[in-house]
């Protein structure tokens, strides 16, 4: 098969358009990478401030990474401490993979006894006006406060649980409730390891002059 002049023209035109667009995107990526990371860090900081109680340390730098699922990235735990350096709350991010529209990222803060201090949704692609109530509906978010695995039925009301669903959106709250419940179960499993080692670490830090 022979490629005639006209076909060469088409191939080159598309090639040039493709290459130029790729270069433009690569350049934009270089310029936006740092600001995006900064914006995400800022958003995380704001979210942490919302879920954590009063603390006397810097939770952003007081962290520990623990691998829970060997084939997944380790989870980062943020510690919030009282004045006497005891831990009052531990915060970490969980992901609900089964949102209405992709994954929902949730920041949950839990007391050492396994009860929730507060939760906030940090990233989602749910329908504006419906599913995005998980970020805007504060009474709903507050309904998680002080709940633990023992004192609540972890499902939306439609499924016989304790948590409201939204009008027109059940899938989104259902995914969030499920993810937070899983987070609590995971916490129960690794709690002793997480708290013990951290206390030791702190002691070691204090021992150093």
């Amino acid at each position, binding site marked *: 098969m022979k490629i005639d002049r006209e076909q060469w023209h088409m191939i080159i035109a*598309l090639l040039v*358009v493709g290459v130029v667009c790729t270069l433009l995107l690569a350049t934009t990526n270089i310029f936006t990478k740092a600001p995006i990371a900064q914006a995400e860090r800022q958003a995380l900081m704001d979210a942490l401030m919302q879920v954590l109680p009063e603390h006397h340390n810097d939770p952003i730098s007081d962290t520990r990474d623990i691998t829970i699922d060997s084939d997944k990235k380790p989870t980062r735990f943020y510690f919030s401490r009282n004045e006497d350096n005891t831990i009052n709350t531990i915060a970490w991010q969980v992901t609900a993979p089964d949102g209405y529209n992709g994954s929902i990222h949730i920041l949950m803060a839990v007391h050492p006894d396994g009860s929730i201090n507060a939760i906030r949704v940090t990233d989602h*692609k749910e329908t*504006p*006006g419906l599913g995005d109530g998980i970020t805007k509906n504060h009474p709903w978010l507050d309904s998680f406060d002080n709940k633990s695995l023992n004192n609540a039925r972890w499902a939306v009301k439609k499924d016989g649980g304790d948590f409201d669903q939204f009008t*027109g959106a059940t899938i989104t709250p259902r995914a969030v409730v499920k993810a937070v419940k899983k987070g609590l179960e995971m916490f129960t499993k690794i709690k002793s390891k997480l708290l013990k080692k951290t206390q030791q670490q702190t002691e070691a830090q204090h021992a150093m002059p």
Partner: protein
Amino acid sequence: MQCHDPNEKPVNQKAEIFANGFWHNNTIFAQLLGMCPLLGVTTSAENGFWMGAATLLALICSNLTVSLIRGAIPANVRIPAYITIIAAFVSMIEMSMNAWMHEMYLILGLFIPLIVVNCAILGRAEAFASKNTPINSLVDALAMGLGFTFALVLLGGVRELLGQGEVFGFDIFGADYPDVLMFILPPGAFIALGFILAGVNIINRNMEARKDKQAAMLANMQTKDVNTVEIQS
């Protein structure tokens, strides 16, 4: 008679392109294109505004680029070329919003990348920019984009007002207003859009009637002139 008839002789070609893009051929009111973002994100005036602004920017970039390279792209491959260009610009806008308008980026979410498939943008590239000069294409993009933004803000404002008693976050109806959730939900978008389109049609009909009246008066005056001349002779 020295009076210009605006219908016969365009005073200014660019003004005409602008009026056409913003109103007479408005993406939403006249062409009924771009319904997905229109109905999806207009739960508030602010969301509508930023969605419209992002679309406006994508439209300006794509119209200008398509117009500049209009001679170099063979007709057979123009659609993939345009789509690649539009997708590149939209991705750049998405990354920039993620970086510098993080909160709004989270709110608009999926609808930003979906600007790529807003047929209004490919439509303008194909129907206008590929046949016109860069300056005229820019005016067309500006008018179309502003018209689209106007429609989004209008629908978002109406839904926010009826659904939450606020516009741009400012309380209008006071705290006692019982929020009509339906206007925030998708059915409210369709209903509000229906009423807005009806309103637009009434305005257009009135404009048409006025134009007809003017034309009739003009014709009347001309006949009078003729009559006067006849009498004098």
